[in-house]
């Protein structure tokens, strides 16, 4: 005998708490509950009559909202394909780059890393250790060197060695730090001058535990360097990362990869069904 929940206002409030708890944010939750395709309307139209139907209904709507489905990484017409990785402090950029490099390496691609975070203590050492564990080359500069010069060196090395992929790590920076955002644009410009058409991927790393501020981050990074995708890290925690729906809807940026742990193998292509189902687990 299973206790069957009644579809009533109390139940809808529970669902609302669940949706907010997943960091979908007021606009998205409003649409899901009170919008023309929302629960309350479906309840009124008798499209939904049982409590059990509500979550499935929401899942379908959420999956429909996540319109962008590209998870494949770009591949340039001629190598190297250049991937620039950016984001605010501590989101998981350096670790995500190591994971990306592992996937590419296991896919038979050659990779070189550029340690263009020349600012933070031991940032270069951190990426260097990953490069050693991966068996891939790394380009580094002097401490406090201009990050754009390291990116340039990386591009030169990539061209000279005919490697398939160049991945450029950058320092964490708040989207509100105008000079640092300008520095990021300069890194991007230096890459595109040296390797026309690059960066072929410009990925923003978001921390899944971040709330509504992730939308501001995406907006401002998008304005500065035109993002091609998002890596949503730390989804192995309890945070659901629901903000990516608003990012998809308002900025049209796809989630390409998710980080699900701290090891090299802890990265998966974004799977809309898995992601949405996990929200309600």
């Amino acid at each position, binding site marked *: 005998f299973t206790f069957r929940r009644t579809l009533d206002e109390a139940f809808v409030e529970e669902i*609302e*708490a669940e949706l*907010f*708890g*997943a*960091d979908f*944010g*007021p606009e998205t939750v409003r649409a899901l509950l009170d919008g023309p395709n929302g629960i309350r309307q479906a309840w009124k139209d008798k499209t939904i009559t049982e409590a059990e139907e509500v979550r499935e209904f929401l899942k379908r709507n959420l999956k429909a909202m996540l319109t962008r489905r590209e998870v494949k990484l770009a591949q340039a017409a001629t190598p190297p394909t250049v991937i620039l990785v950016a984001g*605010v*402090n*501590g*989101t*998981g950029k350096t670790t995500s780059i190591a994971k990306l490099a592992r996937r590419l390496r296991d896919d038979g691609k050659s990779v070189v890393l550029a340690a263009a975070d020349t*600012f*933070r*203590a*031991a940032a270069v*050492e*951190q990426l*260097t*250790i*990953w490069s050693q564990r991966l068996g891939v080359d790394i380009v580094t500069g002097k401490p406090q060197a201009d990050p754009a010069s390291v990116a340039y060196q990386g591009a030169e090395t990539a061209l000279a060695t005919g490697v398939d992929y160049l991945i450029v790590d950058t320092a*964490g920076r*708040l*989207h*509100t730090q105008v000079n640092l955002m300008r520095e990021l644009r300069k890194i991007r410009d230096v890459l595109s001058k040296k390797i026309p058409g690059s960066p072929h991927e410009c990925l923003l790393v978001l*921390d*899944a*535990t*971040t*709330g*509504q*501020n*992730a939308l*501001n981050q995406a907006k401002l990074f998008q304005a500065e360097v035109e993002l091609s995708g998002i890596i949503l890290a*730390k989804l*192995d*925690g*309890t*945070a659901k990362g629901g*903000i990516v729906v608003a990012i998809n809807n308002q900025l049209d940026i796809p989630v390409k990869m998710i980080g699900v742990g*701290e090891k090299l193998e802890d990265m998966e292509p974004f799977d809309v069904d898995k992601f949405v189902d996990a929200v309600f687990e």
Partner: protein
Amino acid sequence: AITRRFTDIIGNITRKKITEGNIKETLREIRVALLEADVAFEVIKDFLAKVEAEALGDRVLKGVNPGQQFISVVYEEMAKLMGPVDTSLHYAQQGPTVILMAGLQGSGKTTTCGKLALLLKTEQKRRPLLVAADVQRPAAVEQLKKLGEQIGVPVFSESGVKPPQICLHSLDFAKRQGCDTVILDSAGRLHIDEAMMAEVKEVAALTTPQEIFLVCDAMTGQDAVKSAKQFNEQLSLTGVILTKLDGDARGGAALSVKAITGKPIKFVGVGEKLENTLKPFRPDGMAQRILG
């Protein structure tokens, strides 16, 4: 913005009272503002219910509408909930004072260790020792060593040993070196990782810290309650440090964490450098920032 509407509330009391009806719209606006600010859903519900219950029947001030007056009550109660100002650091009566930093991955623990060491050295004339007890993140020990070099503070590390033993050994090292304050860095960990939570619990058991800080990122969303609750239950925190407040995150996590744990937010991180970027937490300023 909401806060602009209450800062000029002064005046005489009228015969009008705050009722459910005349603050209904304002309540809705405040709720949306708090959700946009990342305050946890359940915390908003409990907090607003409590403030509403207390405000109902209050006499309205002259020249102010009930909604505006209610906002000022919300602001006062929020500042009160997150306060009082508490930047206390409990020093040991004998032997070194031990401070443990814990929290989720990337929240700013290692950097905050450096900031605190510098603050204690320059403002409190303490002789701190930094302990590099994160042995799993690549170059974590190196990171803390570099920060120590920058501020002239010694860093203790030990290879081939687990974090609880590293921390225990650091106390003897501190005594031998004449360091009176030991700041223990720790690896970032998930509150749902039983082994890692057990590990940091063991560190606390072996070193009996005078202060155990949860280092929490100011941009944390609804998850803040889940992680803070677990860290508090496992570690009996003595305080919270909110980092990256120099960004534009509204910081609703501050209200969530205080409401859920009851532990004081003592400091805030407002920058990546080590100098002058660790400030006392100001509840009224935070309330204003959260309300927007």
